[in-house]
Every structure is written in C-alpha cells, then in structure tokens.
C-alpha cells in the first residue's frame, strides 16, 4: 500500500508535516480545534529526512499566528501546507522566534508576570534544541516540558 493512502487527502485546510515523532498529540492539544472539524493524524510515519515523523491534517482550518508560534516551540522542524481545493497553495516552515511573548506563562509563581499586572509574559529563546526559554522579568529558565505544560 502506498504511504500517501494512510492519511487521506483533504480538500481545504492545513497539513502540519515533519512534526518530531511522538509530538503530534501535544501539537493537537495546543490548537483550537472546534468539535465539527475533521482531523487525521499520522504517528510514526516513515520519513527520508527524519526517520520517523508525525503528520496532522485538519480540514477547513487555517492556523492563526499564535498557533504557529506555539507549534514552533514544541515542533520547530514542522512544515505547514495550506490546502485549497486539494492543491497546496502555500508551504512554509514554522519559525521559532527570538522572543516568545504572550504565549507561555512563567512557571515561577513568584514572578511579577503571574501577579495580575497588565503585561504579557515574555521570554528569550536561549536554546532551540532542546528548547529552553528565559523569562525576561524573573530570569528563570523553562525547559521544553515546562513550556509544554504551560501552553
């Protein structure tokens, strides 16, 4: 059987490809998926580039910037394809920004950003792989698992 048949094509929507194997469910958890949206997930799909990868296809959904930024944190290798009428109209890699603003909460309960002040939590990306963020306010570092838990 051909690999492409394992996950059916979608007419309109978004394909998130090249997700590190095992992270598809985490990626899905951070996306706002409405109840009537069809989602196909491929887990441990063989990949020339990555050995194995995960793939998510979401019908009739186009990702917002904040969702792309969240994906970049936990799956920095991911590629996004926008599908319209079965054709790829746009394809790009997610972009891990230098600063992460308003997406992740600081895990330090004694950080001023957790005290109801009118500011967005802000982090510098100090390492992409493994992911590590540093809060610009309290200077504490967050690991990938801290980040995933607070997304």
């Amino acid at each position, binding site marked *: 059987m051909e690999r492409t048949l394992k996950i059916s094509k979608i007419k309109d929507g978004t394909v998130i490809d090249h997700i590190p194997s095992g992270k598809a469910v985490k990626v899905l958890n951070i996306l706002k998926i409405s109840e009537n949206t069809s989602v196909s997930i491929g887990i441990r799909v063989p990949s020339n580039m990555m050995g194995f990868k995960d793939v998510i296809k979401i019908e009739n959904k186009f990702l917002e910037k904040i969702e792309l930024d969240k994906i970049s944190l936990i799956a920095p290798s991911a590629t996004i394809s926008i599908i319209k009428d079965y054709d790829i109209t746009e394809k790009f890699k997610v972009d891990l920004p230098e600063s992460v603003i308003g997406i992740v909460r600081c895990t330090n309960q004694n*950080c001023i950003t957790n*005290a109801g002040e*009118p500011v967005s939590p802000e982090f510098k990306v100090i390492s992409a792989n493994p992911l590590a963020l540093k809060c*610009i*306010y*309290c*200077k*504490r570092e967050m690991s990938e698992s801290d980040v995933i838990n607070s997304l």
Partner: protein
Amino acid sequence: MLKNKSLISIADLEDDDINAIFEKADYISGHMDEVLRTSPMKSKILATLFYEPSTRTRLSFEASMERLGGSVISMADSKTSSFAKGETLADTIRIVESYSDIIVIRHPLEGASLLASKFSSKPIINAGDGSGEHPTQTLIDLYTIRNETGGIDDREITIVGDLKYGRTVHSLILALSRYNVKINLVSPPSLALPNYVYNGIKDKLNIETYNNLDDVISGTDVLYVTRIQKERFVDKNEYYKLIGSYKITLNEVNKMKNGSIIMHPLPRVDEIDPAVDYTKNAKYFRQAANGIPVRMSLISIILGD
C-alpha cells in the same frame, strides 16, 4: 551613559559605568562639605516604594538624596497603601512617576522593578525584587572590596552562608564575573547557589563549591558572610546545628591572612560573633556606611547633576 536610565540589574551597567560611579563616590566622600553646600539635586524628588520591610536600604537612599539637597517622598506602609486595595504595580508607578524624578522600589516578586521601568518615563532603581537582584548593594560590595583591599582583580573571595535565597549574593556573583577573581562558595547543600544563577556564570568565573569554611579560609582575601534565615527552616534544631558550623568567631579570624577583610550585607544575626567587630578584618559597618557615597553617586549620575 547612565543618565536617565533605570538600574534594574547589575548587568545593565557597563564596566565604565561602574568605574564612573566609584570615582564619583570617591569624590563625594572626599568633598562632602562641598556637596552639602552646593545641593546638586536641589528641586529633584526621589520616591521610595518599599513593598517589603527594609531599614538600611530605604534610609540609605533617603539620606543620600537628602545629602544631595533633593527631597524624598515615601509610601508610608504597603499594608495601608493603594497596593493593599488591589491596585496593580503598573498603576501605582504611572501615578508616582508624575510626582517624582526618580523611583526606588523594593518588591517581594521577581521582575517587579523591570515591570515598573516599562510603565515609567522616570528612572527606576531596583532595591531588591524577591529573590532576584539588588544591584545597588552589589555596587556597595564591589566598592568596599576595591577600597578596602586596593582592587578587585586577583582577589580570592569566599562567600559563605545562604547562597540559595540571598539576592545580594546572586547580584554579587553576577558582578564578580566581570573581574579576574577566584570565588569559593561555602554553604550547606540545602542552601547552595541555584542552578539558574550558576549556569549563567560558570563559564566566566573561576568558581568552586565547598562544604567546609576551613578548606578555604587561609587563602581568602574577602570573606563575604550572609545571613542564614531562621524562617527558612521548618526544624529549628536544624538551623541551630547549621549556624554553628558557619559562624565566624575570633577562631576563624585568626586563620585569615594579613589584609583580608570580612563583609556582610547586614542585618547580622548569629553569623558573626560580636567579638569579631573589633578586629581590623571587620569591614561590614564600613560597607554599610559606603551605601551613602555610592548611592549619592548613582543618583547624581542618573539625574545628571
């Protein structure tokens, strides 16, 4: 370079800024009568917002501004202020910046001073944010090492006590990473330097960890003692056991080399025997007194006299 800038972290300062602060502090110390007469900060107002108890730091900032001829406004008590009514720090700062030319803030949460600086067009000085930084204490510490031992480079500095919660220690170690020094950290394992501080400086500093002060005391130029806080211990017996093994007495002073000094950010409780106060090594009261010229210098430079 520092004119109209906030001082949130010691990392905000260039080496030249630190030297300029020290040189001006030297000048102020030597020309106090002239400074008092000319009142260089006349018509300027310094606001102190202390959300945590402090005696020395607040009085020292207020005395420094008064000696420069400026005025001081203060939040009477954070328990009765608008903060207690639920006002955000951001709103308090927006108001206080319209009343003053420079704001000194101490707050129990980390990052509070940085947040304040984002809501103020006036310079903010961090006087301690949670277990974060206390950069003016660090300037005073560096100034004391420089003046009492004739320099900072090539010194062996032993820091003993609570390295986990002590914000003065975190700021000091960060600042010392600019200099060519050897640092010995002496603490019980439960009060060791946190990884997030250690990771930031381990590649820049010659730094070693010890459990026993005797391993390093004879080679030490600067013995920096910090308070082990009783309230951190659930089991008070554990505190008394610990404090005994890190207490500085004449016995320890006798093992120190000629010209070496003992510092402490104060308040001191049980860590240094009062008998040590009368030795020539004890410089902690001088260190506290240095708070005045150093803070006078900093305020003058930021407000640009």
